[in-house]
Every structure is written in structure tokens, then in C-alpha cells.
């Protein structure tokens, strides 16, 4: 049986729609999510279907979006808050880090915050400095939070549903370049993918690539090409970047003994640094080559002008080259 093919963003919409119809406590809030259906159209159709009480256009104020969501979650709702661009979630950093992440702990398990914060992130869309950033590293050191970054429409649906049903706050980063670029089969039925589990996207024997988001596709493309050269690539998609799936990382590293860690975020302090630390702690004697990290340069964010953006963004050819170098090590 042929499964329906959805784009990445259609999978977002479908997951939201299904969760809203499944549980009346689920509601959506954010800037322009109502009438407009979101600036990317992720909430398209939901306003008409569920009404302004459950698809709420908020004032332009991210700290309130997060903070009001937290309050609603404490009441027993399951808010899905949209941050229009992940770059704009920083005004809400205090609510997310000091409040959402710590409410269960500080109340000794009395209160909890079952809220999902959706935020489009990532580069390659001519967005300039403030519409291209990867924001996960800022939050990927905050116990109490879970950070999910899906790479495929299938994962989007299963992980977004799991995030909404999770009883703790989840930041759900969606790659905005993947929104329309990436398509894939998505079952019509209800399914969830457990948070905190990485996924082997390709089995290989020579080099392991550990990555997430759009870069999974870059790695897959590179692997296809390199297969022709006889290089076999193993690809682990982290999917949850905080807390990391340690066992999966260790296993993937041991699998080939050569590891490329890949992110489009700037390098120093990125989530692949933590993955590197886990490998360094656990796999010293399994490695046949030093780990390698491929990331964006340690500069603020990618510029707007085409050639500059291109220079900044990690490129598929770089991925290919790094894998080849490792294979030949």
C-alpha cells in the first residue's frame, strides 16, 4: 500500500490537527497563527476548524506567549506555542529556562508544564542574521527541557505528537528550509515516536555521521555519492538533541570507529560538542580516527547576501569531503 507523501510542513499541520481533534486540551497560540495560518502556514486551516478560542493570535510578545502557555499548562491544558522564528524566542528565554524547565523540579513534582514550543530554525532561506539561526545550543544545557529536531515528515508527525502528549516542556525546532523541500511518506494513522531516541537513518560500515535536522539530508546525499566510491556511511539522526540518546551515540561511534559530527550551527558549544564528549568518554579504544566536527564558522549568523550566505552555510560537498577523508584515514 502506498502511503501519502507529505511535505515536512504538511506533517506539522497534520500532527497539530490530529492532536487538536484528539484532545480538547490541546490549543495553539502565537503570532499570526490564527487567520493567517502562520507566516509559514504551519497552522493553516486550524483557525477555521477549531475557532479563535483554540487557535489564538497573540500580541507580539514572546515572553508572554511562553509565560501564558506555562500558566495554561499548569491549569491542565496542552498549549502548543509557536515562536514565529526561533531567532525570536530569546525574549522568552527567562520563561522557558527559569520557569517551564524548572516548574516540576521546584514544586517537588506538584506542578508540571506540558507545553510544546514550536519554532522554525535553520539557514539557507535568505533570512539573514535573524531568520537563519540554530538556537538549540542555547537551550541544550537546561535540565527539565527536551529539545526535538526532526529531519523527515515521518519523524515530524510522530515526534510532534509525542511532544504534545509529553508531560514536560518540549522545544520543537522545525527546519524552515526543510518545510517545503523535504517530502516523505507519512502514515495516515496515529503514531508517536518516543522522545529521546536517535534513529539510524542509514546503516554503514566505514564512517559514522551523527547529525540532525536538514544536515541529515546532506549526509544522506553524500552517502549516496560515496557509495559509488565504495565508501559505506552509517548515519545517526539524533532527533532529540537534549537530553541526548547516549547509548545510540556510543553504539553508532563504535559501529565504524570513525565519526563525523555534523551541524549547521556554529561550532563551539554546539550540541555536537556534547556528542563528541560522550564519545570521548566512552569510545576511546573503539576509535580508528579522531572524531571530526563539521559546522558553521564561529561567527554570529549567516548573512543575507547570497554569496555570503552560501559561504557561511555548511555545504553538501563539505560533508562528502569530510566523510571521504575519514574513510581514507
Amino acid at each position, binding site marked *: 500500500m502506498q502511503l501519502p507523501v507529505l511535505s515536512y510542513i504538511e506533517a506539522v499541520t497534520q500532527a497539530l490537527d490530529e492532536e487538536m481533534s484528539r484532545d480538547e486540551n490541546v490549543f495553539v497560540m502565537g503570532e499570526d497563527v490564527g487567520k493567517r495560518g502562520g507566516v509559514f502556514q504551519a497552522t493553516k486551516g486550524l483557525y477555521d476548524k477549531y475557532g479563535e478560542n483554540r487557535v489564538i493570535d497573540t500580541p507580539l510578545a514572546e515572553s508572554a506567549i511562553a509565560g501564558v502557555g506555562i500558566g495554561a499548562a499548569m491549569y491542565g491544558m496542552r498549549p502548543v506555542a509557536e515562536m514565529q522564528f526561533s531567532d525570536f524566542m530569546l525574549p522568552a528565554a527567562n520563561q522557558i529556562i527559569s*520557569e517551564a524547565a524548572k516548574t516540576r523540579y521546584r514544586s*517537588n513534582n506538584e506542578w508540571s508544564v506540558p507545553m510544546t514550543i514550536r519554532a522554525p530554525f535553520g539557514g539557507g532561506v535568505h533570512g539573514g542574521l535573524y531568520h537563519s539561526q540554530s538556537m538549540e545550543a542555547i537551550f541544550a544545557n537546561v535540565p527539565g527541557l527536551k529539545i526535538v529536531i526532526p529531519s523527515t515528515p515521518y519523524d515530524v508527525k510522530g515526534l510532534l505528537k509525542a511532544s504534545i502528549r509529553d508531560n514536560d516542556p518540549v522545544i520543537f525546532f522545525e527546519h524552515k528550509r526543510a518545510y517545503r523541500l523535504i517530502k516523505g511518506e507519512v502514515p495516515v494513522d496515529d503514531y508517536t515516536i518516543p522522545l529521546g531516541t536517535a534513529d539510524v537513518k542509514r546503516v554503514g560500515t566505514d564512517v559514522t555521521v551523527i547529525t540532525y535536522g536538514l544536515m541529515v539530508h546532506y549526509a544522506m546525499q553524500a552517502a549516496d555519492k560515496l557509495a559509488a566510491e565504495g565508501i559505506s556511511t552509517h548515519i545517526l539522526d539524533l532527533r532529540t538533541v537534549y537530553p541526548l540518546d547516549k547509548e545510540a551515540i556510543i553504539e553508532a561511534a563504535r559501529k565504524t570507529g570513525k565519526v563525523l559530527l555534523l551541524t549547521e550551527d556554529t561550532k563551539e558549544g554546539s550540541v555536537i560538542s556534547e556528542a563528541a564528549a560522550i564519545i570521548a568518554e566512552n569510545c576511546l579504544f573503539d576509535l580508528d580516527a579522531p572524531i571530526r566536527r563539521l559546522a558553521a564558522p564561529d561567527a554570529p549568523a549567516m548573512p543575507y547576501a547570497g554569496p555570503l550566505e552560501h559561504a557561511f552555510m555548511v555545504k553538501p560537498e563539505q560533508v562528502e569531503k569530510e566523510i571521504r577523508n575519514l574513510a581514507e584515514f
Partner: protein
Amino acid sequence: MIKARSGETLVKNRHQNLGLSDEVVLSMYENMLKARRVDERLWLLNRAGKIPFVVSCQGQESAQVGAAFGLNREKDYVAPYYRDFGFVFAWGMTIKEMMLNNFAKAEDPSSAGRQMPGHFSYRKLRMLSHSSPVTTQNPHAVGIALAAKIKGDDLVSFVDFGEGSSNQGDFHEAANFAAVHKLPVIFMCENNQYAISVGLKHQLACAHVSDRAIGYGMFGKSFDGNDPLAAYAAVKEAADRAHRGEGPTLLEANCYRLMPHTSDDNDMTYRTKEEVNEAKKHDGVLTFAAYLRSVGVLTEVREKEMEDQIRNEIDEATDYAENAPFADPDSVLRYVYEEKN
């Protein structure tokens, strides 16, 4: 209503006008007294080296207790802040629980000793969990009201904070959100004239914190924070408005912080003894007692009974809390996320 008592001047009975019985105002007073006496005890315990830290409510009990009585204590949701001893007592927390909180013991209902004292939380009483960064609770209170509106539940969401805290972005964003969505929220600022060492005029330049209401298109009002009846009336009015669908209200209780900011503070580095003594003349615990006596509601006998009972309760609670166990050290690893079994 005017009552004449032998040998007394005529004093207006203000609480009957508000529809409050003598028993209710006595209960108000009792809660104020509880807060005051507990607070005093905490300073003694601190000086005696038994607890490392005190944050004080003195000077703000009237506004706190009056406010709590203006709400529906069976139904409404509240987000009190760290000075709200009077509020949380009136809301149902016991002296024993308060002492457990201050000794940071396992049975502390707010956090089992995880948080500093005064960081109140009590799920059973619909009291939200409160953190240290100020004003973060304001949007939470708005979220409660939004959720209630979505669910069609008729309740009021009440939040307290200081006047210094009213300068945080979250104050603004929460107020605006509540007003746009006409939510049943009461924002009550306890203006005690200081944010640690920084006096009012270095915190804000408007005449009254409640002047900010107009900028949100909401109802605003300032009242005498030393008068629990004024607090009651203001909060009751705001709650009535909220139930009628007229949206949020911004209230300001004008009071004075009688003690240093906390036990870590030395307030004599930024204000004078004279100023504090002047403020003590308006201390609501004293003036309300005087009022209750003058209208014949608080008798000497009753007053002594109250004091004795509160003292006993505090003694017992202190003993209990002091001897109660801390949470298990291994518990620091628990409740980071939901624990599924």
C-alpha cells in the same frame, strides 16, 4: 452605620457597609496577626542561627489578607509572591506548613525544601509555583485565566508582585495579553516603596502604579495598603468585574516595608530609622486592631485568645519543623522530568 460605645467617640463601622460580618473581620485580623507573629518568630530564629534566611511580610499583611478575602477561596487560582505570608495564611496554608517551608524540610508543601523560603506553591490550594526571578508569575496567572476561558470555567486568577517588579517586561506583556483577551485576572502590586535599596522614585516616574492600567485599557485603582477593608473592597470589585466579563484589573496597595529586604540586608545603608518609625505609625496590624476595638468587635478577651493560640501554634510548628527530616539527599535527582513507572 454608626455605633456608639460608652466612653468612646463615634466610629463608623466600615465593614458592615462592605457586607462583612464581625466574625469575618475578626478572621481577617487573625490572619494578619498570624503573618506578623510568624514573621517576628522567623527573625528570632534567624538571629538564633536556626534558619539561614528570612524574607519578611511586615507592613504588607493588611493588603494581603484583605485581598484573599475578596476572592473565592474555594475556586480561584492565585500566584502570590515571596512576601505574601498574610495572603497564603488566609488562603489556607497552616502555620506548621509555613514553618516547614522556612526550615526547608521534606514536608514543606511548596517545594519540599528545594526552594528558598517564601517561594510559595500549593497545588491543592490552586496556588501556583513561584520562582525567584521576579514577575515571571504574571504571565502564568494570565495563562490560568486563558485556560479557564477556553474551558468555560468561571474563576478569577490573582497575582501579586512588588512595585519594582512592575518595571519588568513580563509585567507589561502579561497585562497587555490579559487586557486584549479580556481575561479574569487581578494584578495586585504591593507597593512597599522599596525594591531592596532602591526607592520608589528611582523605580518609576508615574504617580501611581495603577496609572499603568490605562495603557492596557484595563481598570486600575490604588488603595491604602494598610487597610484590609480597602484591599477587600478593591479586590472584590475587581473580581466582580472579572466575573462579569469586564476583563483584568490592575490594583496598587500602598504600603511600606517595615523590615529590611531580607535577613541578608541592612536597610540603614539606604533609609533612616526616622522614616521607618514614621511608617510604623500607620502599621495596618495596629490600626486595624484599633479599629476593631473601637467598633467593639475585638474584645480584650478575644485578642488574648488569638495571641495565645497563635503563639502556641507557632511554638508547636517551630518544634515540629525544626525536628522534621530534610528530604533524602538522593532526591535531588528526582522530578527533573515526569517519572513513569
